[in-house]
């Protein structure tokens, strides 16, 4: 009853100050993270959290700075990026070829899609033991793992994207005299782009995940190696640096892809463009 009674005044307030609200909300949303960081820092400093379990965040930042300064971080980061890049290129390339064959050709659909659908049921990270037997524990294991993780989201989004294209638009293009190749270029490809971007974002996420797992297996370099090594010497702060790097990589790649997506798919924001 009291809630019912107070509601109207609350909505009145909301409409009264519309400009101030988004800003205030942004600050309010920052509160909990800041409080958590401060709690973490102080409880480690006063000894509530044991240093070897969770060092204060300032220690983590300091460790990160030290690793960045002596070049260790850059070396390992570049190795990780190279693995992710190679795996992404192979996985995305394969998905584009097979997804296009399955999406565009009926015969391709019948031949390609069933085995892909079946293989999808295997969690690709569970393939690590088998992959070690097949390709060894070297670089090819990491790259294969990333490529596998990337392939599925890319393939399924491309396939669904092609299938979802409005048949009526294809017909209209046909009556405009467009042949098969021109129809793919002007209708199918641009129509699939939104799905492709979604696939690419999911694939990049899968790439980092696969890399995390791959780099814990017999590695001599990379962010994962940095973390495993630090664990052996109980350098919890370096382990946390590695975690933050992984998180930053995921965040940055997603931000970049979203920016490219916004620029490429301007037609979707058509109403705002003028």
């Amino acid at each position, binding site marked *: 009853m009291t809630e019912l009674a107070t509601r109207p005044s609350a909505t009145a307030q909301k409409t009264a100050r519309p400009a101030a609200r988004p800003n205030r909300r942004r600050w309010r949303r920052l509160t909990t993270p800041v409080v958590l960081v401060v709690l973490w820092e102080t409880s480690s400093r006063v000894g509530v959290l044991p240093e070897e379990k969770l060092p204060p965040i300032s220690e983590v930042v300091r460790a990160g700075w030290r690793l960045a300064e002596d070049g260790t971080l850059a070396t390992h980061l570049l190795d990780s990026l190279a693995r992710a890049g190679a795996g992404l290129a192979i996985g995305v390339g394969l998905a584009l070829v097979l997804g296009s064959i399955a999406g565009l050709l009926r015969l391709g659909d019948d031949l390609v899609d069933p085995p892909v659908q079946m293989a999808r049921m295997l969690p690709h990270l569970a393939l690590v033991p088998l992959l070690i037997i097949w390709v060894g524990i070297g670089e090819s294991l990491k790259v294969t793992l990333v490529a596998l993780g990337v392939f599925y989201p890319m393939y399924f989004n491309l396939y669904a994207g092609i299938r979802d294209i409005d048949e009526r638009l294809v017909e209209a293009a046909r009556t405009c005299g467009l042949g098969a190749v021109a129809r793919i270029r002007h209708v199918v490809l641009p129509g699939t782009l939104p799905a492709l971007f979604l696939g690419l974002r999911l694939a990049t996420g899968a790439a980092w995940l696969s890399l995390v797992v791959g780099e814990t297996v017999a590695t001599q370099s990379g962010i994962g190696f940095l973390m495993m090594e630090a664990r052996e010497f109980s350098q919890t702060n370096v382990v946390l640096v590695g975690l933050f790097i992984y998180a930053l990589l995921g965040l940055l790649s997603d931000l970049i892809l979203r920016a490219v997506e916004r620029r490429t798919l301007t*037609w*979707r924001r058509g109403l705002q463009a003028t």
Partner: protein
Amino acid sequence: MATRPTGDVVTATGVRRVFGDTVVLDGIDLTIGSGEVVALLGGSGSGKTTLLRILAGLDQDATGDWQVRGNLAVVFQEHRLLPWKRVADNVALGVPGPDVQRRTAAALTEVGLAGRERAWPAELSGGQSQRVAVARALVREPDLLLLDEPFGALDALTRLRMQALFGRLRAEHGFAALLVTHDVEEALLLADRTLVLAGGRVVDDTPVPLTHPRAPDDPGFGALRRHLLDRLGVPAAA
């Protein structure tokens, strides 16, 4: 009227189309002369659209003989513009030649959308989108225009404007047209001849000898309207 090759733009004999066990078109004979506007009437499911799609080359499973001479353009009930292409690129889609840009601008001017070349389809109203679709057909300099209930999805006022626009363009360009519609008044306002499709056959073929521009209160209009409604199975009391 622009100069055009004389002779028929469409000749069709014995066109048949079967979906499963349903015979939709059961031997259609149709000729459309150069510059002639033919309205194709019929209830839902009578096969009007099927016949139009066959002539447009969008139906591979029809049997019989048919031939379309000259340039062909289609306007569908929905505008069917590609959302990822700007208005000008939609109009110019698949048009070859060096002066495409000028012709596109001219076509857009003719439908009253001069200067909207750079707009996205999402920015246009339903009526404007359909005007772009008409411009996309016009720029192809069609000898035959196939229109599948082109104004059916528009509101009543916009529909009247579009009908007037069609009349103007037709007088200027002299294209032949097959206008699929379920609107008897629209057929009588725009067509030189009306066909009624029922049971897979053409059951009525009536010329419309009224002078342009026409209005529903012209003498002779009412009689033709009653005749067509009768052939369409609508009680004459209306």
